[in-house]
């Protein structure tokens, strides 16, 4: 069950995510950010002091400030020195952080931006999909994960600030982003590139497990689902057309337009990071997702009567 802290982790909070790194691909940037913020404040203070002197200072001070020399020092020499240092730092860090080809044995995940959710596919060494999921990413603590980012429709941007900077997801391209979490926990993210409609409601979460716990999670996802006992909810799922868009492994449902629901019951959130996930919210989402997330691509299913809705929510919540 999501807790207060978990929801916050998904959606931001204090301390500022950018200044609260949780891995080696965000930590150096945080250091840079602090240097910039403090340095910037100091420079601003110097300029304000110079302005104050120019306006109210003693005549001798003002004379010193009032000439080409002050401009050469303050406007040219000083910035050139500072900016050269910053530029070198920035370039070095850029080269360091930019993800290149996958490393041997590295975990690879393809994340596809969709209007307005995230398709997640865990890949094996050869690039084949082994686990399908949506809107959250499970990673083991302490190892790097290479994300292959692409888009199915418009431009989105993948951003989990505590783990790494953002990277756009552009149709026709595959951008790489490397992340690593150094502590277990849930790290929130959100689409950062305006992608129309409910762009504001396109959240994401990275769940970092200890290696053992991650292995358990992975095994549970890979394990064959026991031959499913046909339930009223499953019947409804098939009969109502849900299967046209959604896949549930082990059933006839194999739609590809919407998120894979094979393990929907175990996901942290619903509607791409915007609602806690339980039977109640599932029912609400099915019946009237358009009020919750206006413009999303799932139509409302108000034709289901109370018992049907309950059964369907029960069934989905049970897909752990």
């Amino acid at each position, binding site marked *: 069950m999501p807790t207060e802290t978990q929801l916050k982790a998904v959606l931001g909070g204090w301390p500022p995510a950018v200044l609260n790194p949780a891995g080696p691909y965000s930590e150096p940037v945080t250091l840079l950010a602090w240097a910039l913020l403090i340095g910037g404040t100091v420079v601003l203070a110097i300029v304000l002091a110079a302005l104050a002197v120019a306006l109210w200072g003693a005549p001798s001070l003002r004379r010193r400030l009032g000439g080409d020399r002050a401009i050469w020092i303050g406007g040219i020499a000083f910035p050139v020195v500072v900016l050269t240092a910053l530029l070198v730092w920035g370039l070095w860090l850029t080269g360091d952080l930019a993800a290149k080809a996958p490393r041997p044995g590295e975990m690879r995940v393809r994340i596809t931006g969709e209007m307005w959710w995230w398709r997640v596919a865990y890949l094996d060494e050869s690039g084949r999909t082994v686990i399908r999921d949506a809107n959250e990413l499970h990673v083991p603590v302490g190892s790097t994960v290479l994300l292959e980012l692409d888009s199915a429709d418009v431009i989105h941007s993948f951003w989990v600030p505590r783990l790494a900077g953002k990277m756009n997801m552009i149709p026709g391209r595959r951008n790489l982003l490397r992340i690593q979490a150094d502590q277990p926990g849930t790290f929130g993210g959100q689409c950062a590139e305006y992608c129309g409609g409910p762009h504001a409601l396109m959240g994401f979460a990275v769940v970092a497990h200890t290696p053992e716990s991650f292995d358990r999670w992975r095994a549970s996802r890979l394990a064959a689902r026991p031959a499913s006992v046909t339930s009223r909810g499953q019947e409804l799922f098939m009969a109502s*057309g849900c299967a046209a868009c959604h896949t549930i492994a082990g059933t006839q449902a194999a739609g590809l337009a919407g998120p894979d629901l094979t393990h929907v019951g175990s996901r942290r959130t619903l509607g791409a990071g915007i609602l806690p996930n*339980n*039977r109640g919210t599932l029912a609400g989402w099915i019946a009237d997702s358009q009020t*919750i997330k206006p413009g999303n691509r*799932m139509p*409302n299913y*108000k034709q289901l009567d109370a018992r049907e*809705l309950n059964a369907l929510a029960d069934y989905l919540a049970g897909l752990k």
Partner: protein
Amino acid sequence: MLAAAIVVIVELAVQIAGIQSGQARDEPAVSLASQSMACRASVRRSAIAAAEGNHFAACAECGIAALRPASSEACGQEERSCGEKSTHPQRNHRQNRLFPKAMDDHRTGALFALMAMLPLLSACEDVPVAPHDAQPEAIKRGRLAAGQLGCGACHKIPGIWPEGATGPDLTNLAERGVIAGSLPNRPAELTAYLLDPPATVPGTAMPKVPMTRQQAEDIAAFLHQPDAH
């Protein structure tokens, strides 16, 4: 009898609200893919519905449907709007306006009618609302729990996102005589109902949302807070 009448009224209100919000919504943003899916869904359902004489369900492709069969007049209205929609399947008229009306007229009207009737009904039923002597902390905890559990997915509860329209509006719940159509509006009943709605009121649309007794009591306190909203 009266309980049944209230159920009908509540559901009618919900339906009208749903219809209105469904129409005002930005339907074209729903993609081709999901439209075709919706069509597929409705083909089957409408076949079933036709067999059962359920006119509302036959209109399902509008994405607006009913929970129960209702008067044929209402259905006719539905069908008209269905027809209009289906002739412009890809219509892209954004209906948003710079200054949208705060609420659609029908919806307001229905809610108003509902509000107006409830005190009356409760007087008939003679079920006094128990004063909820809840602690402010419990109310605070309840607000938090309601948010965490996502009650807003179905209900309009001021301050709890996203003010869904599937379930009844819970604004000023304390002033109502009955809840869930048949239960007296008292803390204990409300708590019990929250913990397991289908077991308490068979046939309710509200699923059993996993929560602790403490959470249920807190939420009940939150929903009953006097000058809540």
